[in-house]
């Protein structure tokens, strides 16, 4: 299995290297779908130039990266292309190892449930075999590496790639069962962009499952483990924030990074829902709707945790997708990360409601060329369409997943009392 992966990595690196040298690189880094005010490479260079001039990068409103990025690129600015290619490769390898481990866990659990006779009798088609699961890790890794969104993100040198790497390592650490590493990577991911905070719940559920601690509110073990994990997470977060303070000797980065993510002052177009909404929002309600939109991202965690507590990795996938759709400055790099997981659930195709090929429309934006309201509206409707597609895709997968679970426990061929074929509805 290693050989095809290495081949895939070589192909991916070649594609990226070729694009770096071509004239497309400049064109792609200007695209608003790929570079947002939070992670554009131009702004990283600007921040470092401000630092050279003796001005704090956070004194203006151009630079919104964390001090970790300043520290990283202060030394590596010359090799930036190499850095981004390596991060993509690391992400792919991390996902590969994580999914490989996860497949083993899934297979073991499935075997246990078959032996315990939990499944209905006629669900042989739905049982997953090691044969079909053999190529999934490779597919996941290649899905990430060769996804045009990832390639564009890498060529544009968007720091979203670094965020994706951290999240991939966090997933790997969680699936391997290491509490400490999982907490550390999660805190780095939260420190980079605020939203991975919601991934705390699925990670906790998975680690509890791995430790065979049942999720019962009255259980002492449950609370002990939860507080342990939460403490590790919060402590590492505090450590990283304090280290960032000592880098520039000021707390300026907190309003500049987290205040910026939460209050959305910059209305540069991107593929998210926030910008045009707040461009047209009445001043009086601006604060209210900012709060509503931000709560919308964090709000699905608890209900999903209640529903999907037996399937924490699927929960993680849904949560990642929700973050990518509803965060304040999404880019295609964020979309690429959760899309990499789709091969993991390709066995759901039988139960799908819509037949979605997860083929997103080709991104093109008329933003930079014309100046008219109609172009603007076209850009906005395109944004809404993308968000809607993503939402339908995710809810489709969710529906298919739940339906498969139902089939597994109640049988594939459902009959009504009179023997005719039954319909399954959500009531």
């Amino acid at each position: 299995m290693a050989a095809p992966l290495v081949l895939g990595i070589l192909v991916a690196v070649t594609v990226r290297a070729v694009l770096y040298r071509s004239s497309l690189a400049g064109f792609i880094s200007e695209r608003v779908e790929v570079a947002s005010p939070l992670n554009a490479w131009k702004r990283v260079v600007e921040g470092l130039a401000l630092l050279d001039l003796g001005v704090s990068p956070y004194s203006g409103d151009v630079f919104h990266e964390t001090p970790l990025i300043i520290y990283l690129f202060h030394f590596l600015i010359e090799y930036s292309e190499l850095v981004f290619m390596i991060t993509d490769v690391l992400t792919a390898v991390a996902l590969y190892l994580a999914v490989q481990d996860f497949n083993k866990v899934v297979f073991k659990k499935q075997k246990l449930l078959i032996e315990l006779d939990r499944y209905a009798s006629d669900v042989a088609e739905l049982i997953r075999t090691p044969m079909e699961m053999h190529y999934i890790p490779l597919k996941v890794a290649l899905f990430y590496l060769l996804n045009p969104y990832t390639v564009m993100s890498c060529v544009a040198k968007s720091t979203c790639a670094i965020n994706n790497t951290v999240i991939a390592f966090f997933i790997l650490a969680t699936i391997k069962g290491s509490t400490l590493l999982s907490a550390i990577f999660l805190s780095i991911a939260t420190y980079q962009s605020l939203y991975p905070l919601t991934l705390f719940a699925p990670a906790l559920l998975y680690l509890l499952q791995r430790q065979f601690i049942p999720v019962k509110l009255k259980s002492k073990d449950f609370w002990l483990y939860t507080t342990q994990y939460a403490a590790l997470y919060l402590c590492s977060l505090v450590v990283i924030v304090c280290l960032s303070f000592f880098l520039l000797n000021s707390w300026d980065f907190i309003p500049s990074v987290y205040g910026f993510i939460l209050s959305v002052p910059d209305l540069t177009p991107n593929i998210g829902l926030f910008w045009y909404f707040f461009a047209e929002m009445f001043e009086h309600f601006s604060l209210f709707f900012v709060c509503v939109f931000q709560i919308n991202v964090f709000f699905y965690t608890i209900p999903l945790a209640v529903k999907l507590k037996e399937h924490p990795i699927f929960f993680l996938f849904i949560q990642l997708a929700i973050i990518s759709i509803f965060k304040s400055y999404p880019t295609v790099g964020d979309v690429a990360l959760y899309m990499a997981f789709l091969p993991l659930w390709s066995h759901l195709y039988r139960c799908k409601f819509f037949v979605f090929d997860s083929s997103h429309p080709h991104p093109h934006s008329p933003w930079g060329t014309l100046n008219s309201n109609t172009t603007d509206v076209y850009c906005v409707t395109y944004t809404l369409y993308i968000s809607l597609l993503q939402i339908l895709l995710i809810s489709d997968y969710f529906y298919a997943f739940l339906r498969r679970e139902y089939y597994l426990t109640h049988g594939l061929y459902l009959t009504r009392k009179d023997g005719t074929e039954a319909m399954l509805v959500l009531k």
Partner: protein
Amino acid sequence: PHWVSGPEAEVQRMAWAVAAVLGLLLLLGSPGGCGGSPGPPRDSLREELLLSPLPSGDIAATFQFRARWDSELHREGVSHYRLFPKALGQLISKYLVRELHLSLTQGFWRTRTWGQPYLQAPAGAELWVWFQDSVTDVDKAWKELSNILSGIFCASLNFIDSTNTVTPTASFKPLGLANVTDHHLLRYAVLPREIVCTENLTPWKKLLPCSSKAGLAVLLKAERLFHTSYHSQAVHIRPICRDASCLSVSWELRQTLTVVFDTFSIGQGKRDWSLFKMFSRTVTEACPLASESKIYVDISSKTQENELLEVTPPPLSVHEASVQGDRRTYAVYDLLSPLLFNVSRSLNVQLKWKRPQDSLDLSTPVLHAQRYVSGYGLQTGEISTLIYNTHPYRAFPVILLETVPWYLRLYVHTLVITTKGKENKPSYIHYQPAQDRRRPHLLEMLIQLPANSVTKITIQFERALLKWTEYTPDPNHGFYVSPSVLSALVPSVLAMKAEDAEKSPLFTSLFPSADGSSYFVRLYTEPLLVNLPTPDFSMPYNVICLTCTVVAVCYGSFYNLLTRTFHVEEPSRGGLAKRLANIIRKVRGVPPL
């Protein structure tokens, strides 16, 4: 009725006499006063008009009214104002202003065709103020000051707020006396969109001691003054030395007004000018309150031959001065001399060219600049500034100050300065990045300009999308970027001797001259008009509804999937509609639902 006589009468008369003498002494003594308080401070007014024909055939007229008041406004509680206007005096003492410069300009001074200006002002309104170091909250004082000036001059200076105010560190050093120059006491703001019209001229004229009733101010009639290519009126207040020893401070108020009459629209194509042709008025008398009232006409010959320009009536005296590195000759008309109005009651200075000239000697000014925006689309752009140094052998440094509004996000790593194809690193850069909706970008650089060269400074920017309420009612007009300021000490060809400020004409003592080998010049570039991407203003509700619909789709799907479970559908009997449909289907012969 009858005089009392005798010893009582004698005593009474003595008492009255003593009382009278004491009363007289008191009356005489009171101005001298007990405690030795001085009399009211001395003030003087000088007015002057300078007519300078420009190389392109136009004519520039610069009025200067200078009131000088030997009083310490900040220390004494002053209440008696004579020549110094009370409105401005109270302003200075209340807000502890050290220097104030306000200008309102319409049009742009074309340095390349008109030559170096004496005092240029940027298009729109410009206000810069130095406060005393005893001011605790400079921003608050600045805000209140700009609001009060807005009321005094009927200009929209109340739009000056933190989004267009900057604190320059190297430019705009004080023009008057200064011992402490902490640049945090300086505030500078430009409103490029401001329009100047008659309602700004009227309060400006009201500040003059003779208003527009006597002296040179009778020429200031709005219908002629606004029919010009360039109209700039300014108020400059600064402290100056009272005398050579400089132990005490006087306050100087200069009101300047510069207009350029266009040879084609006013002059009907002819290059001959007269006071009547320009202002449709003539001068009849000097302002009685003025100690000096003069008209200067620039008759310096630009070619080898003797005067091509004939001035009538013949001037009583001629003044030579070296101004801006050139030796110039001026014909002087002193309105206070009795000889002037001997021949006729009114003075109409006429300038006639002896023979028609096709092209005058266009001596290019030593320093001039140009600025433009380049780029395409509404996402990015580039601001380029070209600075020309036409001096044949001398290089000199220039300070460039750029203020760019926050919605054009500058990227300072794209700043490139090239001279003659090679990179030119500035020796001093001060860059203060903008904060969204709070303060603009400030870029100040000290650039060395080699002799006979063109320096190009380019910087890239990104256009921001504003909230729909932040656009002006005419958003497609564009947004103005204030002119950039170039301050330089230009080396002069001739050595200039330092003259006494009180005796030399007003137009030579505008800027303090450090030494005789260079003169100070402050130039402004053009303001820029930049288009920003606009949202669709007609559909706020549509956008809100559509976006909320998308969020609701997600919420709805998730709510369904999270709160509901799968059930096998039980067949229902069907409602009335279904039964009716089944009946129709039976009639048609189609299987029932």
